[in-house]
């Protein structure tokens, strides 16, 4: 016997944390309103022997859905999703310290007519504040059982399960209800009822949370708050370089040692070349950037769980509004610094269709972590490592400049979209600013591990086969006997690179760079490994030198800068294009994106190369 259970609740109620506690699933929990965008299901067997299929629904304030996210919640609750019945039991998850809006949601949910249990989550915080809730009285009046839970400590889970079990047994006999979208008068009435319930059954906290107010006085200060936000972002990017350094050196040294080991152990030949130049150097040159990606994600996850993200959206609303973007677009765009794919998917929290499309179109201009390997390689090859003004690292500053260029171009593109193509004001900005919470270290660690696994499997599944393909392209056909030039000149890759090179000559790209752009279409960071393969194969004498110092000898300074400029815009990422196709449900937008980004990349690289060349680079 299986029962279907759906978790419903306001954003920031700890719904996803409760889902994790129930199903043990490894999923993202965050403090930002509306982070749950994907359908998430898990199963659990109750002590009573019943199997529960638990569905984690996006947070909402009302069943009257406004965004694609909230439509999912409404349709799932009402059983309108294609091929799915309405759930047997609803679990309404509430932040025990913030009951007003969820009480109104409960009144709406009661009209649906499904058996329901209310989980008063974060009950430990309510107790610490001295908030008194007459649980039995409230349960009696609402007509549904109430369980107190602390999802992050797994408290109250067993009791919740047994209540769900009881309700599931009787769910067949529940009378069917009818929900209709409430009008303004009904919403007012429901608020009045919620207010009455609060007055009757909840005693205000004896020690209310004053921390959030005190922290906000600093973090939401019009001048100081913005300064802190930018300082945070700056620190984040400096940390990506400095903290990750030692770990990167270690990984790089390990793979070099592994290559040497293989060289000593195996006879010279095609297989040794494949192993060292294809497999080992291919995997190594991608994994070496894992530490940087870890640091970046650590910052993003901590800020999300702390509750800072909604504040960042608040601070950025007017600034982004100047570029025609909605304050809510800040979160998708910030996520895009890690990867454009989760960024584009989280744009679902934006209600207005045009606001959402604008955000999707500019999201890939944010510097994703896949560009870090390319930037890091070219920067270490062409930008000297020295201190500027005594405290900043020049390489870090250039990196910051590249990020800034990405942000500014995203703002410029969205401004053009909003002022030229879609005129008119943006959606209202209405956003809850949740109470600050200390991030749960276990939760952060779990999410970080999840990100690392995604990166590594991606490296394994997409990047590795491509590395092999590049090695094949670069190795076959072999050079004719007695050939004078390097072997790769005669290979397929050489032919392709030479064929496309005239097209890219005005932007300073040689044929090796052109070859590297081709596999880079699968994932931007593949370009680094491809360059490694192209040069390692082309010049067997360069074993000892790292790729960076090799490039600094092979490319002109102007070409190096042009390559950086290309990658600010670089449209090559097959997965991003696939996600845009899925999110917009048409090929039109991915094609528009590909075209405008390629044009910008070519233009930027052209300007940079010609300028630097004219100045003697």
């Amino acid at each position: 016997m299986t029962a279907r259970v759906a978790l419903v609740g306001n954003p920031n109620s700890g719904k996803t944390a409760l889902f994790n506690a129930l199903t043990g699933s490894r999923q993202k929990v965050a403090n930002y309103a509306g982070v749950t965008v994907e359908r998430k299901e898990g199963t659990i067997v109750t002590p009573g022997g019943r199997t529960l299929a638990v569905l984690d629904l996006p947070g909402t304030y009302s069943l009257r859905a406004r965004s694609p996210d909230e439509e999912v919640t409404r349709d799932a609750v009402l059983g309108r999703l294609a091929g799915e019945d309405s759930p047997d039991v609803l679990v309404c998850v509430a932040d025990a310290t913030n009951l007003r809006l969820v009480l109104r949601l409960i009144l709406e949910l009661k009209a649906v007519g499904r058996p329901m249990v209310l989980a008063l989550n974060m009950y430990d915080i309510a107790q610490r504040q001295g908030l008194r809730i007459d649980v039995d009285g409230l349960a009696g009046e609402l007509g549904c059982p109430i369980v107190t839970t602390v999802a992050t400590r797994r408290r109250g889970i067993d009791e919740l399960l047994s209540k769900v079990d009881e309700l599931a047994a009787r769910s067949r006999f529940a009378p069917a209800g009818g929900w209709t979208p409430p009008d303004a008068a009904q919403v007012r009435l429901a608020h009045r009822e919620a207010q009455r319930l609060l007055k009757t059954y909840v005693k205000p906290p004896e020690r209310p949370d004053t921390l959030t107010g005190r922290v906000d006085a600093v973090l939401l200060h019009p001048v100081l708050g913005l300064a802190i936000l930018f300082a945070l972002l700056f620190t984040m990017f400096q940390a990506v370089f400095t903290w990750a350094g030692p770990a990167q050196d270690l990984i790089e040294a390990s793979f070099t040692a592994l290559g040497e080991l293989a060289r000593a152990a195996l006879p010279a030949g095609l297989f040794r070349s494949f192993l060292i130049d294809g497999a080992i150097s291919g995997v190594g040159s991608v994994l070496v950037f894992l530490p940087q990606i870890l640091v970046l994600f650590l910052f993003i996850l901590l800020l999300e769980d702390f509750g800072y993200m909604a504040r960042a959206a608040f601070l950025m609303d007017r600034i982004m509004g100047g570029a025609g973007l909605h304050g809510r677009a800040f979160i998708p765009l910030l996520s895009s610094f890690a990867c454009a794919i989760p960024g584009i998917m989280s744009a679902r929290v934006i209600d207005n269709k045009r606001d959402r499309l604008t955000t999707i179109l500019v999201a890939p201009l944010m510097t994703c972590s896949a560009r870090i390997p390319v930037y890091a390689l070219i920067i270490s090859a062409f930008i000297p490592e020295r201190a500027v003004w005594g405290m900043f690292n020049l390489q870090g500053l250039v990196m910051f400049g590249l990020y800034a260029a990405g942000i500014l171009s995203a703002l410029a593109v969205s401004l053009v979209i909003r002022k030229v193509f879609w005129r008119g004001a943006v959606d209202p900005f209405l956003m809850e600013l949740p109470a600050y919470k200390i991030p749960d270290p276990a939760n952060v660690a779990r999410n970080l591990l999840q990100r690392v696994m995604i990166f590594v499997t991606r490296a394994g599944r997409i990047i590795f086969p491509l590395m092999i393909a590049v090695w094949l392209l670069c190795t076959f056909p072999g050079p004719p006997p007695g050939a004078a030039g390097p072997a790769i000149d005669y290979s397929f890759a050489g032919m392709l690179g030479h064929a496309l090179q005239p097209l890219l000559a005005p932007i300073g790209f040689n044929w090796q760079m052109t070859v590297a752009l081709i596999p880079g279409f699968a994932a931007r960071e593949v370009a680094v490994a491809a360059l490694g393969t192209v040069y390692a194969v082309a010049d067997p004498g360069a074993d000892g030198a790292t790729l960076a110092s090799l490039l600094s000898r092979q490319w002109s300074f102007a070409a190096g800068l042009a390559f950086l400029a290309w990658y600010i815009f670089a449209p090559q990422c097959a997965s991003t294009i696939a996600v845009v196709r899925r999110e917009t449900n048409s090929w039109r937008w991915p094609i528009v994106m590909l075209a405008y980004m390629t044009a910008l990349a070519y233009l930027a690289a052209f300007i940079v190369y010609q300028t630097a060349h004219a100045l003697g680079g």
Partner: protein
Amino acid sequence: MNDPSASTSAEADFGAVAVLPLGEMRVGQAGVIVEVTAQAPGGDQNLSAEELHQRLLEFGFVEGAHVAVLHEGAIRRDPIAVKLDDMRVGVRRRDARGVTVLLDKPRP
């Protein structure tokens, strides 16, 4: 966009009893919502006045609720962070014009 500072003198004329749209309140001002009306958001063709009205209501901007302006944004003092009963909400001034607030008596 209305200049929020323009109305402060009008409010002073009323002495203890003053009514102000939430969209024009300044940091430190507080009061009780007396009316929430359907007001078209500035120049927007995408969203009807009624839809904005509904969203404000759903967020808890209802008659009788307590509001206090806690923070203002850096550019043109927009958006504002308000304490709405026991929760904190960020809202743009132009979206909050339809919320009318009876200001508390200023403390001596």
